[in-house]
């Protein structure tokens, strides 16, 4: 499905942009939470690219969605870490 692949590409580019923003915020504030966000959005970008490039009918499907899961867990860890530091 070419439209879905196009949308995935757009999402990957936007994820990369968001990650770049968060890295810039981290440079300015030195707040670790922004690093967690940047890593998470880079992982979401990788997941989109993997899912579009790889054939999702094969056994790699759990691995690709596993990357997405790790991205969300990174943000949860970041928020918990931020609250713990406070």
């Amino acid at each position, binding site marked *: *499905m070419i*439209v*879905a692949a196009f*949308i*995935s590409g*757009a*999402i990957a580019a*936007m*994820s990369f*942009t*968001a990650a770049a*923003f968060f890295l810039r*915020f981290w440079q300015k504030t030195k707040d670790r939470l922004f690093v967690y*966000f940047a890593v998470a959005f880079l992982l979401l970008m990788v997941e989109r690219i993997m899912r579009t490039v790889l054939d999702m009918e094969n056994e790699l*499907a*759990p691995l690709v*969605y*596993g990357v*997405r*899961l790790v991205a*969300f*867990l990174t*943000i*949860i860890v970041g*928020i918990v870490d931020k609250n713990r530091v406070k």
Partner: protein
Amino acid sequence: MVQIVYILCSLACLLCAVLLMRGYKRSKHELLFWSATCFIILAFANFILVVDLVLIPTGVDLLLWRSCMSLVAMCVLLYGLIFKSA
């Protein structure tokens, strides 16, 4: 196995949204609001993923709907990052 990963993705994303919204209510930082909104939409997209691939695997393919929702979520986040993060 893969179904568990889909469900965990959905739950982790929902938890991210809840934690970010709680953070916004406490600190009133606008960036947290836009991040939380992004994750709420992503949580919906992940919920549709569970419906599409776990609950009704033989039904209509909702890939395009899921992709569009994720695209909207990223647009919301980038709007917040560009215009509301000052």
